[in-house]
């Protein structure tokens, strides 16, 4: 009987049918995750139940010899593990060799490439967009759960053609490792993970575009790193001309510049300051961000300040996951009804415009589209 039980347990442990998932679909993942933990607990209890009489038997016979031998075994184990840990110090070292390419990322870190990266993982939607925009989308093997532009990545992941590495703040290192990437594109949010990944030997570029120039720099950076410099340059030129065209039209019309309030989030009310890309978008689209002098990137603001600054235009983004017509925190009427807001020029002149939250979510190759959308909101007569 006991033999059978031991065999059964062995079987479970070795085959480990319940301990890992076979496919990458997230729904199935969750289920397996829960079951695997339960299964594991059950196995542990069975193990304990089997071992228990052994322990009791040992207890009775416990004498000096047995103690000494167990202690000796443990000491050997400790020494051996110590040695093994020590010799493992330099796993994942950088491949040395001819360094033909040196790239400095937005945080000033220099990464050396000895070959053109063929397996790219992106840890943020903006990076995914840049990768696809410079034409290396076919080399992307891993994205986050929040990526859905320019393709429906969620469907790709579900179909098993792409792997998700997790959410914004907790990319799964094992997934990353099992994808064996040779380039990882990260943002400053992932800083702690970047440290770890680099220490594991992966090449990580941290991109942090805060304005149009930053986007261009990053496009060129990615292009350089992936050997797609021509595509990158072309893209930058194309975007530049798009933006220039918009700006030319605006300056030609010589209309007064509207003051603009962009609501990043509520509650609490949060807008965009000098160092955010939204500020740059607004200014390049011919508007004046009422919080353009705020040093914080995304400052919390008060209703009073907004009313006092009396913006001409209010931009409200929609929910990023469910684009529609309403801002993600209520209806336009709700916004108009806020206490004191009836005196704002934008409210009185009905210049409250709902913009696509997903479009405005991050700074990336779509920045030209962002500027276009903003310009349309500011100068409806021109666009």
């Amino acid at each position, binding site marked *: 009987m006991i033999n059978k039980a031991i065999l059964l347990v062995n079987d479970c442990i070795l085959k*480990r049918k319940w301990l890992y998932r076979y496919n990458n679909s997230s729904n199935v993942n969750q289920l397996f*995750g829960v079951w695997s933990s339960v299964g594991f607990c059950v196995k542990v209890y069975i193990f304990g139940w089997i071992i228990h009489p052994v322990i009791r038997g040992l*207890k009775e016979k416990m004498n000096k010899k047995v103690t000494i031998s167990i202690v000796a075994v443990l000491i050997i184990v400790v020494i051996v593990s110590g040695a093994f840990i020590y010799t493992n110090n330099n796993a994942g070292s950088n491949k040395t060799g001819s360094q033909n390419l040196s790239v400095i990322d937005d945080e*000033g870190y220099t990464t050396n490439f000895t070959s053109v990266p063929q397996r790219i993982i992106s840890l943020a939607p903006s990076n995914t967009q840049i990768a696809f925009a410079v034409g290396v989308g076919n080399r992307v093997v891993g994205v986050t759960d929040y990526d859905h532009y320019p393709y429906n990545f969620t469907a790709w992941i579900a179909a098993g053609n792409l792997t998700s590495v997790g959410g914004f703040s907790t990319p799964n290192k094992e997934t990353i*490792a099992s994808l064996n990437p040779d380039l990882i594109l990260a943002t400053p949010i992932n800083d702690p993970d970047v440290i770890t990944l680099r220490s594991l030997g992966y090449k990580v570029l941290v991109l942090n575009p805060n304005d149009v120039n930053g986007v261009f720099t990053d496009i060129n950076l990615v292009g350089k790193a992936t050997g797609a410099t021509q595509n990158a340059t072309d893209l930058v030129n194309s975007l530049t001309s798009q933006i220039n065209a918009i700006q030319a039209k605006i300056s030609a019309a010589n209309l007064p510049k509207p003051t603009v309030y962009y609501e990043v989030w509520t509650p609490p009310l949060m807008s965009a300051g000098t160092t955010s890309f939204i500020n740059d978008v607004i200014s390049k689209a011919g508007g004046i961000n009422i919080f353009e002098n705020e040093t914080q990137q*995304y400052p919390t603001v008060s209703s009073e300040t907004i009313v006092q600054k009396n913006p001409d235009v209010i931009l409200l983004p929609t929910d990023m996951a469910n684009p529609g017509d309403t801002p993600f925190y209520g209806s336009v009427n709700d916004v108009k009804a806020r206490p004191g807001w009836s005196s704002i020029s934008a409210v009185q002149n009905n210049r409250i415009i709902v913009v696509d939250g997903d479009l405005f979510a991050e700074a990336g190759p779509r920045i030209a589209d962002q500027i276009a959308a903003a310009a349309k909101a500011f100068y409806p007569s021109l666009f």
Partner: protein
Amino acid sequence: MMTDKVKEKYSKRSKRWKLIVLLLIVTLVAVVILCLNIGFAPISFYDILAILGKQIPFLNHYIGSSSVSSINEAIILQIRLPRILAGAIVGAGLAAAGVMYQGVFRNPMADSYLLGASAGASFAYTLAVIYAGSLALNFFGLGFFQIVAFLGAVLTVFLVYFMSRVGNKVPITTLLLSGIVVNIFILALQTVFELRSGKALIGIVAWIAGGFSNITWTNVYVVFPFVLIGIVIAYFFTKDLNMLSMGDDTAQHLGVNTERVRQILLLISSLITGAVVSISGVIGFVGLIIPHMTRLVIGPDHRILLPTSAIVGAIFLILCDSVARVATGASELPVGVITALAGTPFFIYLLRKRKTSYSL
């Protein structure tokens, strides 16, 4: 005859204790190996054994080295193993520190965050992320944030301790109150800075919530001596802890230098807590409940309670982290959630099953 049975039980006690500790260590090793099986990447048990075996100098030659892919090897050795070991070290450290705090304060609700270690570490980390973010990445690499968090934890505890000093003595209630006040104060500052942190907020909150997703071998090397040496030194004072739990006066009358012992124990446990929080964030429940759980089974004698709590804490945290790793797809649950969910029912079960008398 009853008296003889009692006498026999008592004199064999130290042997029984050694056996218990030994068995727990064996269980710990087994749990470590078992949990190497858990994770996103499917790696078979044989492969795992092979990978481990390759590292042992003598067994090297008996294992076919080509059968294991280097990716899997990297995953096991660079990602899973350090993470599991870190879980063990952190669990042991938190549980041991919890035992010490509960003994020193004679309060069952004490854990090692009482004097502000967690608040200090979180706050220091927040400040470091906001003001030294990318700088740190480049110049100090791995160690910077850990060092900052560690210093934050330890300095806060020192601050609380010296705030409560009256002449040569530090009355316990004053210490407790100072701890509470400082905790609240720092938390308030923390909130202010969190609101100013912008995009970094997610990262900060995630770190504070606790987790092992970014453990590297360096983390393990650095923290292991703190915890091990701390527990060993604390073991010297377990008899004193026994007597301290009777009351300061009684302990003094039995020859214990209460002030000195308290200082030493608080110092050690704060260092352990600081070290541990610096790599894993603030993981709750372990330091508070594991000592109680162990005490329910094994009794209040600190000479056995300290080592067993440490090992039980290690095992517990490894298991919880393993669940946290795989529970929801590619992203992870915070380990603190799992510790609370898993530990509470088990603790309630123990409470209800409690025996009225302990074996000697």
